[in-house]
């Protein structure tokens, strides 16, 4: 058999696939598994006018908003959980800088499941009584043809590009997950089935033979994957579940830095624009700190 296409790319090569004005989904949920190394590279490349279709976002989206790269956001939550509100999102919305389309959380999740099922829309009753349909023209009324009443119709997520961060994969783009997964990984798997434009950053590239020994952990088969990129600690300062924990100190510092434009600019200069590569970023964060975030045996 001829060798399958090698899909291993550099971070810069993979990020250059995203053009200005793209409709993207960044994986992860809340304070876990966001593809941060990829986000930083998008920032360095100057990619702009993005529509981000998300569900429960944190500073992955907040930093893009703060740098002025997001035109439209479809979402349910942008915040930092224990670290507080998302500072740039808050500021940008208060000054009317971005277009919002917001949904309840299960509806925002279901938009991806709907795309994965190949359906254009689904119906729900959970937002009835709220002001969401009043401010979001994408939530439309529809009557059940079987006679059970009025529902809200919501469109499928339909991202052009999905970028997720995962534990491991091979150079052909097969992606391995741990046997014990949580909702953030499950949501990423659902999102991976919504497009054939899929970029996966992984903690580590493993041999193809390893995948064949663990086919039951290969939950994204390579035909789905456009590019795979190796970026250890690629979700920092968020956790990559079962691999390392959140960098609490860093997230608290981000929340603080985002509070005004000048300190946010200093944050960007220090951790993004003044950084030449992901390795350079890891050096700035420091080996000792990263080592302490590791969770040895976390998936056992």
């Amino acid at each position, binding site marked *: 058999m001829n060798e399958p296409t090698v899909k291993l790319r550099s971070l810069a090569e993979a990020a250059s696939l995203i053009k200005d004005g793209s409709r993207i989904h960044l994986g992860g949920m809340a304070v876990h598994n966001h593809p941060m190394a990829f986000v930083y590279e998008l920032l360095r490349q100057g990619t702009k006018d993005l529509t981000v279709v998300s569900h429960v976002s944190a500073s992955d989206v907040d930093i893009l908003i703060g740098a002025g790269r997001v035109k439209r956001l479809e979402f349910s939550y942008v915040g930092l959980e224990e670290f507080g509100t998302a500072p740039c999102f808050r500021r940008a919305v208060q000054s009317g800088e971005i277009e919002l389309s917001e949904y309840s959380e299960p509806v925002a999740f279901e938009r991806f499941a709907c795309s994965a099922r190949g359906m254009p829309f689904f119906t729900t009753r959970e937002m009835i009584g709220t002001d969401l349909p009043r401010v979001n023209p994408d939530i439309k009324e529809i009557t059940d043809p079987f006679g059970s009443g009025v529902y809200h119709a919501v469109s499928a997520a339909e991202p052009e590009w999905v970028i997720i961060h995962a534990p491991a994969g091979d150079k052909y783009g097969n992606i391995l997950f741990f046997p014990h997964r949580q909702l953030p990984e499950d949501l990423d798997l659902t999102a991976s089935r919504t497009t054939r434009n899929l970029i996966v950053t992984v903690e580590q590239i493993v041999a193809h033979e390893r995948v064949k020994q663990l086919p039951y952990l290969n939950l994204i088969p390579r035909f789905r994957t456009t590019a795979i990129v190796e970026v250890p600690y690629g979700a920092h300062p968020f956790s990559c579940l079962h691999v390392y*924990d959140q960098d609490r100190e860093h997230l608290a510092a981000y929340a603080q830095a985002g509070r005004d434009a000048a300190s946010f600019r200093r944050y960007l200069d220090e951790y993004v624009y003044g950084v030449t590569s992901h390795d350079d970023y890891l050096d700035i964060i420091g080996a000792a700190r990263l080592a302490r975030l590791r969770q040895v045996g976390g998936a056992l």
Partner: protein
Amino acid sequence: MSRIEATVYEVMAAAIARELRDNELWFLGMSTGPQTILMLTRIPIVAMNLAQHAHAPNSWMLVAGWVMNPDVSKVPTRMESEFGTTLGEWPCEAYNNSLTMSYIAARHEIDVGFGSAAQVDKYGNCNTVAIGDYARPRVRLVGPINQPGHFSLFGREIVIIPHEKRNFVDRVDFVSGAGYLDGPGSRERLGLQRGGPCMLLTDKAVFRFDSESRMAVLASVHPGIEVEEVIACTGYTHDYVPQSVAVTPSPTPEELRLIREVIDPSGAMLPVRAV
């Protein structure tokens, strides 16, 4: 056991526990900011455990929607994040890790949820989206998250907020959780046959919603709190103070023992108790 007075957090946990019945499904989500995490996450977890120990052994709790019936006495650290190692290491009966967890709610199988908000109005409507005009808000909040479903799909909602004047408004700026909307009949007109807020709990008092007017009424003040103090930090302008206001029952000695010795022996959930 020694006669140590209950802390306000223990009073709140016991008050919640008495709202919970056997054979129910309870859903607790996550929240933003340390104060809200204490009020909306840690107190209800203790309350649900208390109810299970005291009178509701067949109830079933979904913490963060996915950790089912965790034994919080074995929790080494405080729960701060919805997923990850902290919660993932809790001993519990089952996990629900897939996004199909939403379908349990869509099927109306959840009996009780817990919610908080930056604003709650006299009809129990809640706002986690924006203060001021939606398009150009004075303060943009985190977003609706799961609040819409708590008020439209669940059997009833317990709303927990810090008792500050600005949190109590006549009308929320944005409805992300539909309480009794514009008053009697509002929910029914929209086809919301069940659900809505049953209790508004703060660190000073309990409010309930009048079955006719659908407006919040001061039901009890916590031990040691004067009605005047509650009035001073409540922003409502309707007449919410009845002729006589009860005192929120303190936890019984048995409830206190369960909280302190069985459920939260390390104090990981409730802040260090006043001794």
